[in-house]
Every structure is written in structure tokens, then in C-alpha cells.
């Protein structure tokens, strides 16, 4: 990004010497005190980073009020005029990594978990989330529910066209969902609120019976199994494909620039898994997501903070999994500190028990309560996550809509080893005698997740006298044992938000979800609350449902990790501004769903000159 004076040989040798001495000293220290010292340091880092963000937010607000950015810079292919301080168009690109997950499919409605592209530049979603996590229409301009809540009508934008010039109509949207759900879509469960989605997915009904129809060319109607107040939120992952595209364009058309048909602001113009993909602006685009950048380059990019500091990558995340040295470097460097943006937690790690009866002790709520009360969650999280996680008292992350801090006071969340021992003794396992040795399955764990489970293992041994064995597993083995065959007695797993409504987390805890636990009374209570169109009543009911979730002790919520995102200080634009809660997010909207990098541009600022 910027040129700097190289170090002299003397300085270089000096640094090498310091690094060697540091490495030598580090290797001589005993591990335990080192962990404690690092934890304290990192907690300070996070606090300071948050302070920096708050200061920046105030400053930016003042700037916006007094001096709006003059739009007199270069004009891109969509006709968008960039601000006056923008770099030339050939330097207006986003450089991001090629999809880390296999990346088999080009269209997100072919596969979500095995998709090739992380962004939504090529295709329009039905809706999206802005930086304040408010839902807005992308493929549609408005929506309204039926009076009885049995369906929603989405009024589509009339001026949207495909890159081949054809208009985008309701028939395209209908085709897309029918095709996906009847062709083994791995994210089909996400749409199970839609009428007949489940039987269509399983092949028990033809795709034509799916609850989606084109009322006219520009009115899309979606019927639901029950009233679904948050249905517009589901549209953030619903991307359109041209009617009959799978048949007319052939398999894998969305990976082939020659056959690719775009509805979004970008067109796939080069596809190479080795040398990278290139997305260029789609000149036929008439939608509302209007990027300033000219290109998206998806390439194999180097990892680590060093690559970010060298200017070879545009984005780097620091979190609990980062090496302590990286966190130290960020903390010590004023430019990196200023480029650090704490992200809201969007993920909850939790412990789950198979309560279905195959593991008799775990079917007893008092045994599970004993297990919960024997875990010192606050200490475990603060020690292991280096300040990059909150203790989880329920499934909803801290700051999420309907977050309930009072859950901390619920019995399962209160660490009380004596009470736990008594509960276990009353259940017939005094001092853990006779308690079976279970395996705790951990899904594709990070170092921190393993450490958490080791801590739980140690505390159960110390506080209750019971022994468990840890079984870190790859994704497939874990899913098969914990949620498929249900041969796992207990498991440790996480769940991330797909949209910003409590339902995104809580739907999965219904008996029809993935867990080896059945509670129809909870389902009824939750479903009733969830389907209410009265927001206050709905949230009140869902808060009660979350409380019962914790009290059921079928799950024990442990940690809500978060990251600090770094991007260069010469990246500017409205979508990078602090949101109502002070968070700044990269990508063009709220984190957790795909965008098209709208509202971002590169300035000619030399703010990185002091880096290093």
C-alpha cells in the first residue's frame, strides 16, 4: 500500500538478535505462568481496542455532519461517481481468498456449505441486512404479510434484469427455490418454515407443491407452515437464478464465465481454482447495491498478520486462535490498533447431552444439573479465550436482539460444586461412583475448544469424581455420531447466526432440529411465541423459551467468541462507518450474511505510512 524506508543491515541484525533471544527466553519459561501472563495482556488489548473504536465513531459522526464527502472522483462502469479522494479505478478492487471450503458450486442455491464464492456480488438476494442489522429489500422493494399470517407477498423490483438482458421476474424466484429444494440442497432445512418445504425436500411431494408462487411477474408469494414474522430475514440467503438455468445453461454454469448469467452488480469473468477468480462490474445492473469498487479478485492469498502488514492482503482477523505474538504486534503498533475493529459475537459454543434414554444417567435432569453446576464457566472462558469471548448464559449472543442477561442467575449457570456433588449423590452416584465413562465429542475443534473441554473434564473429575474422555472429531464423524446416529452421549459444538432474529438460534432447538433431545411442550411454547406478529408478545415468549432451554439442562451454553477485524485505514465508505452500536463491519452490510462490497472505496490517504 505504501513505500517505507527499509531497515539497515545493523537494524536487521539487531532485530534478528532480539527475536532469537526472545525465542530462547520463551522456550526456557514454564508454560503455566506464561499462559496467565498472556491472558492478562490480551484482555487489556481488547479493552483498548474498544476504546479506540468509540473515539473513532464520535469523530466520524462529526465529519459527516460538517463536511460531506465530495463526489468528484472517478466514475465506475455502473456510472457511480467515487469520492474526490478515491484512488484510480484500476486500484479499486477487493482482494479476498478463494473459498476455503471445497467450493464445488457456483450458485449458493446449489449448495451453501460447498459454495465457491463467499460474496453475493453475482446474484441478487431477496433481502439483505444493513450495518444496523435492519432488513432491506434487494430483489424486492417491499413486502407485507397476509392478514392471517399464512403467506407473505414480496413486491419485486421491476427494473432488474439479467446480464443477458432478460427481466428478472417472480418466475425466476419460484424456479430457484423449487429447483434447490428438490435437488438435495444442503441448506434446505433453513427454508422449512415455508409450506411443504420439508416433504418437497425429502421427495414426498413434487416441487410444484412448494409454498411459493408467482402471483404476477413482479409479485412473489411465499406460504408458510405457520405464521412466520421473520420471513423477510430468510431472504438474506435466498439468491435468484434464471428460470430453467440448470436445464438450459447446463451443470456448473455458475462456475463458467462463458455461461454465467448475473443478476447482481458483478459478473464472473475469470474462473481458475489455481490462479484465482475475477469479478467485474455488470453493466446491465439496475439494482440498489451499487458498489464503488470496480473488481473483486478472489485468489490464493498468504495468511497471517505479516502478509497483512506487507500490504498483500486487505483483511485480517485477530482472535482467540491467533498466536499471542500477533496480538502483541497489533497492540504495539498504532496503525494496526487504529485499523482494528472489534466484531459482535455471532456464535455460541455449547455442551449438549443425549437425553433420549440410551445413556441412562443423562436422561435424569438432576444429573445434568449437577454436571452444569460443577463447571466454573466464567473462569474457563476468561482464561482460555484471552479476552476474545463472553461467557454464554443462553444461546443468544451478548448484544443480540432479545439477549437476556438475567439468564446468568439461573441455577444451571451458577457454579456450585457442593450442590453439584449433592445432586449427583442423590441421583445415585456419590462421588461419581458408578457413573459411566462417556466420550465427549468435539466438532472439528480449535485449540480453545479443546482447552475448554479439557477444563470441563478436569472440573468434573475434581468436583464430581467422574471421568470422561475427549473425542475431537472431524465434521463428518461428529455430525454422524452426535446428530445422525446419535451414538454420542455428549458433545461440544457451536452454532452461528444466519440472520438477526432470535429464531436463527432457537429454531434449531426444536425437537425437529438436530439435537438428541425431545420436548414437545417446549416446542409448543416456542412455536406459539415465534409465530406471533406482535413483536413484544413474540419476544416475551421467546425469552421465556430461552429460559426453559437453559433450565432443561439438555444443553449448557459456554462461550461466545468474537474477533477483531483489521482492514487498511485507507479503506473508507458508508458501510465501514460505525453502526448504531459502534461496530464497524467489512463487506457491505451486517456480518453473517453475504454482500457485494457496496459502500467501500480506497482513498489516496497515506495513513499507513507509519506501519511497521
Amino acid at each position, binding site marked *: 500500500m505504501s513505500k517505507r524506508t527499509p531497515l539497515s543491515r545493523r537494524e536487521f541484525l539487531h*532485530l534478528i538478535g532480539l527475536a532469537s533471544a526472545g525465542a530462547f527466553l520463551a522456550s526456557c519459561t514454564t508454560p503455566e505462568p506464561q499462559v496467565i501472563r498472556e491472558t492478562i495482556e490480551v484482555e487489556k488489548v481488547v479493552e483498548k481496542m474498544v476504546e479506540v473504536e468509540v473515539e473513532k465513531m464520535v469523530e466520524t459522526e462529526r465529519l459527516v455532519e460538517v463536511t460531506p464527502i465530495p463526489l468528484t472522483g472517478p466514475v465506475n462502469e455502473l456510472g457511480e461517481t467515487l469520492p474526490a479522494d478515491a484512488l484510480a479505478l484500476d486500484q479499486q478492487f477487493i482482494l479476498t481468498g478463494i473459498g476455503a471450503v471445497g467450493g464445488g458450486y457456483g450458485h449458493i442455491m446449489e449448495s451453501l456449505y460447498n459454495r465457491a464464492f463467499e460474496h453475493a456480488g453475482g446474484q441478487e438476494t431477496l433481502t439483505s441486512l444493513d450495518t444496523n442489522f435492519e432488513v432491506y429489500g434487494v430483489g424486492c422493494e417491499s413486502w407485507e404479510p397476509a392478514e392471517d399470517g399464512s403467506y407473505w407477498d414480496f413486491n419485486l423490483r421491476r427494473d432488474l434484469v439479467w446480464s443477458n438482458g432478460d427481466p428478472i421476474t417472480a418466475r425466476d424466484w419460484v424456479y430457484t427455490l423449487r429447483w434447490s429444494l428438490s435437488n438435495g440442497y444442503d441448506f434446505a432445512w433453513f427454508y422449512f418454515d415455508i409450506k411443504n418445504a420439508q416433504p418437497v425436500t*425429502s421427495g414426498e411431494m413434487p416441487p410444484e407443491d412448494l409454498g411459493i408462487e408467482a402471483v404476477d411477474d413482479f409479485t412473489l408469494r411465499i406460504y408458510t407452515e405457520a405464521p412466520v414474522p421473520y420471513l423477510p430475514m430468510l431472504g438474506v440467503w435466498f439468491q435468484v437464478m434464471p428460470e430453467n438455468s440448470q436445464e438450459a445453461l447446463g451443470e456448473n454454469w455458475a462456475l463458467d464465465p462463458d455461461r454465467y448469467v448475473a443478476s447482481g452488480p458483478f459478473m464472473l469473468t475469470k474462473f481458475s481454482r489455481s490462479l484465482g477468480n475475477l469479478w467485474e462490474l455488470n453493466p446491465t445492473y439496475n439494482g440498489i447495491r451499487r458498489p464503488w469498487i470496480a473488481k473483486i479478485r478472489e485468489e490464493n492469498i*498468504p495468511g*497471517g498478520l*505479516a502478509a497483512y502488514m506487507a500490504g*498483500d492482503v486487505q483483511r485480517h482477523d485477530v482472535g482467540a486462535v491467533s498466536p499471542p505474538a500477533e496480538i502483541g504486534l497489533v497492540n504495539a503498533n498504532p496503525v494496526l490498533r487504529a485499523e482494528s475493529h472489534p466484531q459482535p459475537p455471532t456464535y455460541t459454543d455449547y455442551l449438549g447431552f443425549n437425553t433420549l434414554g440410551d445413556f441412562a444417567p443423562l436422561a435424569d435432569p438432576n444429573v445434568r444439573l449437577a454436571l452444569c453446576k460443577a463447571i466454573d464457566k466464567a473462569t474457563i472462558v476468561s482464561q482460555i479465550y484471552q479476552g476474545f469471548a463472553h461467557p454464554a448464559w443462553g444461546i443468544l449472543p451478548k448484544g443480540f436482539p432479545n439477549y437476556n442477561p438475567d439468564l446468568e442467575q439461573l441455577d444451571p449457570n451458577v457454579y456450585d460444586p457442593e450442590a453439584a456433588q449433592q445432586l449427583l449423590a442423590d441421583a445415585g452416584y456419590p462421588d461419581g461412583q458408578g457413573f459411566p465413562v462417556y466420550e465427549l465429542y468435539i466438532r472439528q475443534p480449535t485449540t480453545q475448544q479443546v482447552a475448554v473441554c479439557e477444563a470441563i473434564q478436569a472440573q468434573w473429575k475434581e468436583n464430581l469424581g467422574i471421568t470422561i474422555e475427549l473425542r475431537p472429531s472431524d*465434521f463428518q464423524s461428529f455430525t454422524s455420531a452426535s446428530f445422525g446416529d446419535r451414538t454420542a452421549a455428549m458433545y461440544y459444538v457451536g452454532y452461528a447466526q444466519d440472520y438477526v432474529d432470535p429464531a436463527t438460534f432457537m429454531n434449531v432447538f426444536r425437537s425437529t432440529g438436530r439435537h438428541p433431545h425431545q420436548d414437545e411442550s417446549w416446542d409448543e411454547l416456542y412455536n406459539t411465541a415465534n409465530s406471533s406478529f406482535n413483536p413484544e408478545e413474540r419476544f416475551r415468549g421467546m425469552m421465556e423459551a430461552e429460559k426453559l432451554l437453559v433450565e432443561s439442562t439438555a444443553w449448557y451454553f459456554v462461550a461466545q467468541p468474537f474477533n477483531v477485524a483489521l482492514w487498511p485505514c485507507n479503506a473508507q465508505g458508508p458501510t465501514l462507518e460505525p453502526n448504531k452500536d459502534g461496530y464497524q463491519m467489512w463487506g457491505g452490510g451486517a456480518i453473517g450474511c453475504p454482500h457485494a462490497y457496496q459502500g467501500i472505496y480506497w482513498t489516496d490517504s497515506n495513513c499507513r505510512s507509519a506501519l511497521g
Partner: protein
Amino acid sequence: MLVYTLKRLGGILMTLVLLSLFTFTLSRVVPGGPWAQGAEIPLSEQQIQAFKEKYGLDLPVWRQYLIWLGNAATLDFGRPFTEPERTVTALIRDTLPFSALLGGIAATLAIAMGVTLGVIAAAYQESWIDSIVTSYAVVIATVPSFVMAFLMKYFLAARLRWFPSGAWGNPDDWRSVAWHLVLPVAAFALPATGGVARWTRQCIAEAMASDYVRTAYAKGLRSTGVLTRHVLRNALIPMITSFLPLYPGMMTGSLFIEAVFGLPGLGKYFVVSSTNRDYPLVLGITMFWALLIALTYFLTDVLYGVIDPRVRISERQR
């Protein structure tokens, strides 16, 4: 020699068939399947059944294996579930050149540096030069690649800006590619030089202690002549056995080097094919790897004959 060669080739073929049977069985025995990769909610039985029918996974396993074996005989290893737009053969063909170039240069550099250092250490045994080389060999071999890569990227790329921190560079400009490969090659090669240097020193030191070397010196030959014509030639056999396999090992890619430096290559597929339960890819890559290793050892055996006439004589006598 021909009979010997044919026998070895037959052995290789048999090994490959057995390995394919073993890998095929193992890949089907592990829990899970390619239909559930990354899915938060397990797919329904019907969805899994539809997937199996689409890819022929609903057939009896022995039939699946025979079908696979028949196709593999024509180098058709199927299509990866994770990258269905190309065949496994095309995937290997597309990615191998990147790994082969990086690994080939790194292996050559490691061998060249290591052998040079080993020869020097052996020539100056028990001297301070020997101590320095031996210490270097021990230290460099114990530095993990990730530490080496991190130090190089931090000092040489982020701080000094002498080299890029990674990526392949412009593929149409060999100078750009070469410039981008400096750090990855160094990070890949340097740790390997330690082992090469130590083994070279040991082989040469043993050869130098032998009777024919003493005789050569007694005949009045110069040190350089003794070293090149007698010592090195005799030390080459154990060295070749150790060093040639470095090539298939390094040329088929390193997950770590590719990930850290953001390089395209085959390395990552050795891991993700397995974690994704991508059966065609697991089998294709395993067989390709096994073939490379087998051919390397075959080549090593042939080279024995070229280097050491005693091998040819003993074969003829048999």
C-alpha cells in the same frame, strides 16, 4: 536387467491394486459421508439416498470398487464431489505443476546445499568447520517450518519489504513468479538441508574411513581426486536412497507452505479430500502419490545399477 525391471514393475502394479483396495475400504468405513459436509443439520434419509443414487454410492461396495478399478485402469478416477466441474485427473494435472515447481526447486536446493555442507563437514572432520556445519544441520532441522515461515514473512516481507509475503505472482511473467517463490522455497528447503547435510557427512565419513580410500591416498592421489572419484561415488548409493524420495515428497505439495504463502497446489487436497469424504479425490490422490513413490524407488533401484557395477554383476549372477 530387463527381467529385473519387469519384476519390479509387476510388484509395483500389485502394490497399487492392494493399496487401492485398502484405501477404498478404509474410506467407506469411516463415519459420515460426502453428503453432509459442513451441514449444521444432518440431511434427511431421503436426501442422502438421492445423493447416493446420483453418484452410484447405493450399489454394493464390492461393485463400486470394481467399477472404480475398471475406470482407473483408463486413468479415469471420477469427479470430485467438491469440485465437480473437473475430473480428478484434471485436478491433479492443473495443480501439480505449481507444487512440482515449488517442491522441485526446494528439493534441489535442499539437496545441493545439504550435500555441499555435508561434504565440507566430512572433508574437515573434527575441525571448527565441522562443528559449525553440524550445529547448523541440527538447529535448522529442528526449527519447525511454521516458525521459519513466520520469521521470514515478518522480517523479510512485512518489515524490510524485500520480498512479497506470498501468492504466485503474475503467471505470465517468470520473473514475478520467481520473485514470489523466494520465501516459500527458502522456508520449504532450509529445514530439509539439515537432514541432507548430516546424512551426507555420515556417508562420506564412512567412505573416507574405508580401506580403498587409504589405498588411494597411499598411491599418492590428491585429496580432491580421492574425494570425487572414490569417496563420493561410493557414498552416493546410501545418499540416493535417502535423497531421491525427497522429490515426490516435496513436489506433491505441502499443505502448510501452500496455506501460509497463499500458493495454489496439490498439497491442500491431501487433507480436504479426506475431511470432506470426497471418495473419488481420496482414491485418486492416494493412487497418484503411491505411483510417484513407487516409481521413485524403482528409479533408485535402476540408478544403483548405473552407479555401482556390483549391483549389475550380482543381478547377472542370479
